[in-house]
């Protein structure tokens, strides 16, 4: 190992300067500081703490929280295999093993020459074109053995990423079905002109008439949120677009940002007009960092066109601009209060609500946090009016919904449907056959079995943020649930004990069953843990973490029962093997030096 390089203080000073030495920018500063050497050596953390006049423990706490920040050296080529269940179904495990073998390293370890490190990461949102990976933050989809061979070779030759074949980095939108939003061809500024014409009050009334509800899953009425923020005391008010699309199986926001960024930014500006906000943030998940240049270009173009900045559309009191804030690999930051903490440069620990962000959000100011899709949809309302918007969909779910469809089907990708569409219709459209189950809403969502395929996508029936993962008859739903349990255990923020310990215990039980040590008593313990997580967790992550287990235990119980080796109790480990080391040390092999794993055999 080489010795630590001297801290490049001049470069760090430049980064600090660009961020005005604000401690609230700590996360952004750390992300940029990491770009210097690929990781964050201890002297860098110390230097930043001193320069920002904050305790070093806070800097270390933030650096240690986010998966994409490294306080230990990582390879010059940092390879992260996306590990959603859909990636696993497409063979990511085998591909990762193959790459590790070719490069002579173990997963999670750094190669001796510091060239490469390979490990897994949570869903990177390439489920429709998986298996996916990130190499130094850049996304590659459709991995095959051939691609893996080539990647191994290019890493060995130390070829710079810019010289890798361009088609590797081509991420497709895969839009399969368009409805009102994806068919909208809007000239930037058209929706804004319409709402400025209506006046702030008139615009808010249109949003109210539209019955628009949040597309992030919770379905809160957008007009109510906006009005609460508008009426709350405190300035300047803030609009946040939540593009921390971390729910496994969801990738609609990636497509909206890639091809409909103007609608998203215009939606944020429409929100600002209604609320009277002057500051805007797009919280972009670290996995989508490769979209940053494109998004910055769109923002620059909008500023030039007078659609952002001071006196938008020549309105004297309409100032609003948008900054992009990068996340760094933390699912929990999709929760709006954790997201705000992260925006403030802290660990993404969810806050206690109330107060809600609409009254006390970013830096204690009134803050609206809306999903990417929700904001894009407001353009439709601005152009066509609230009543027209409310006319489609169902009684309680107005408009359309983008679904991110992946898993066992012929045509995975983005499908836009009016709310109320039955599951069976979607399965038919995307060419799914022999479907055993559908996971709607991601890991935190609901697992639907065949007898429920007449149910409909709508807040009043099957609500969803957009993930729609299909499992055919060849899949084992226990494996699916176990993958999600691992995901939650990894993504638990660690703040509250029920979630931190509960997710990890639940993972232990699922692994015990998977390893062939399952017993009936474990199912009772799993039930108990499910209830504990649901009732005692601090935020939605913990209370949703048992969902995949609860659903599959109810609907696919035999998948668990066939794994039981005892109808009573079974240790998770081999008792006789636990004596092996002592046997070796004492050179004993008498009967007393052995233990039967099963008690019955002993009697």
């Amino acid at each position, binding site marked *: 190992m080489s010795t630590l390089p001297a801290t490049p203080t001049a470069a760090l000073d430049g980064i600090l300067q660009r961020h005005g030495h604000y401690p609230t920018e700590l996360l952004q500063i750390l992300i940029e500081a990491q770009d210097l050497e690929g990781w964050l050596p201890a002297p860098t953390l110390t230097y930043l703490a001193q320069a920002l006049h904050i305790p070093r423990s806070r800097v270390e706490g933030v650096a240690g929280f986010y998966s994409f920040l490294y306080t230990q050296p990582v390879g010059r080529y940092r390879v992260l295999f996306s590990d959603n269940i859909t990636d696993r179904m497409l063979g990511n495990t085998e591909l990762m093993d193959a790459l590790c073998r070719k490069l002579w390293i173990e997963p999670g370890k750094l190669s001796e020459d510091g060239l490469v490190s390979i490990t897994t990461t949570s869903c990177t949102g390439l489920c429709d074109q998986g298996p996916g990976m990130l190499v130094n933050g850049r996304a590659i989809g459709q991995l095959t053995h051939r691609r893996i061979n080539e990647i191994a070779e290019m890493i060995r030759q130390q070829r710079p990423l810019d010289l890798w074949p361009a088609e590797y980095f081509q991420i497709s939108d895969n839009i399969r079905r368009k409805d009102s939003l994806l068919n909208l061809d809007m000239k930037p500024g058209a929706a804004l002109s319409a709402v400025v014409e209506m006046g702030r009050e008139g615009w808010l009334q249109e949003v109210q008439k539209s019955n628009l509800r949040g597309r992030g899953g919770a379905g809160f009425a957008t007009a109510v949120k906006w009005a609460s923020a508008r009426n709350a005391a405190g300035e300047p008010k803030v609009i946040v677009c939540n593009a921390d699309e971390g729910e496994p199986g969801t990738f609609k926001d990636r497509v909206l940002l890639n091809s409909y960024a103007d609608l998203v930014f215009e939606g944020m500006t429409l929100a600002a007009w209604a609320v009277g906000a002057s500051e805007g943030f797009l919280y972009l998940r670290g996995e989508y960092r490769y979209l940053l240049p494109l998004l910055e270009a769109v923002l620059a173009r909008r500023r030039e066109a007078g659609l952002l900045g001071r006196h938008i559309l020549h309105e004297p009191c309409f100032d609003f601009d948008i900054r992009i804030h990068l996340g760094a690999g933390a699912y929990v930051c999709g929760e709006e209060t954790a997201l705000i903490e992260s925006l403030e440069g802290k660990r993404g620990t969810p806050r206690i609500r109330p107060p809600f962000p609409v009254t006390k959000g970013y830096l204690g100011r009134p803050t609206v946090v809306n999903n990417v899709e929700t904001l894009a949809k407001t353009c439709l309302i601005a152009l066509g009016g609230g009543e027209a918007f409310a006319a489609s969909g169902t009684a309680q779910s107005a408009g359309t919904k983008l679904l991110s469809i992946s898993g066992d089907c012929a045509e995975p990708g983005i499908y836009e449907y009016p709310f109320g569409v039955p599951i069976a219709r979607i399965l038919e459209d995307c060419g799914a056959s022999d479907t055993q189950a559908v996971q709607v809403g991601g890991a935190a969502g609901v697992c639907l079995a065949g007898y429920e395929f007449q149910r409909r996508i709508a807040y009043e029936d099957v609500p969803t943020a957009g993930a729609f993962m299909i499992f055919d008859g060849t899949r084992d739903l226990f494996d699916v649930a176990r993958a999600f349990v691992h995901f939650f255990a990894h993504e638990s923020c660690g703040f509250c004990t029920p979630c931190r310990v509960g997710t990890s215990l639940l993972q232990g039980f699922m692994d015990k069953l998977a390893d062939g040590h399952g017993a009936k*008593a474990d199912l009772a313990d799993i039930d108990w843990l499910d209830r504990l997580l649901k009732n005692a967790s601090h935020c939605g992550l913990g209370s949703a973490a048992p969902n995949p287990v609860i659903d599959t235990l109810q609907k696919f119980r035999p998948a668990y029962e066939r794994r039981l080796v005892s109808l*009573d*109790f079974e*240790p*998770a*480990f081999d*008792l006789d093997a*636990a*004596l*092996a*080391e*002592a*046997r*070796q*040390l*004492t*050179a*004993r092999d*008498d009967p*007393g*030096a052995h*233990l039967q794993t099963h*008690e019955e055999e*002993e009697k």
Partner: protein
Amino acid sequence: MSPTPVPARKLRVATTSLAGCFGCHMSFLDIDEHLFELVELVEFDRSPLTDIKDVGPCDIGLIEGGVCNAENVHVLREFRRNCKTLIALGACAVNGGLPAQRNHLPLSECLREVYQFRPGLENGQIPNDPELPLPLDKVRPIHEVVRVDYFLPGCPPSGPAIWKFLTDLIAGRTPRLANGLLHYD
């Protein structure tokens, strides 16, 4: 038909200490004068109090200490077979406790350090008499080896906590320790 009266029968209780320090048993004795009430309600099977060597059919089994060797496994299994209700008593039974501190070291290092490399030791060797139970590679909390019905944490649980727990059980209530009685240290 009138319900058959349940014959008044003393509950049978067994206790043992595995990889523990007998601190939980000492704490048990701290129920002081309640001991007189207790012997009206229960009779003791295998326990350090009776010096009975093998446990017979019981209602309640109290286990102090974690599982550190083969003998602990046998005793624990015998208790499980015989006790309708099995209780992990104290930090070591619940979590492995202090003895589990060796878990982050390889067993061979622990034994060699103690029996071979300790200063002043000449030609020391690791004991290998078949009479001695072999140590497990890791010290385990008892619920990893058998099914456990209740957990009573504390290092040790206080006398009043043990008394409350036992009287709940004897009276047919699900044991529940209020704030103050429930603690982990």
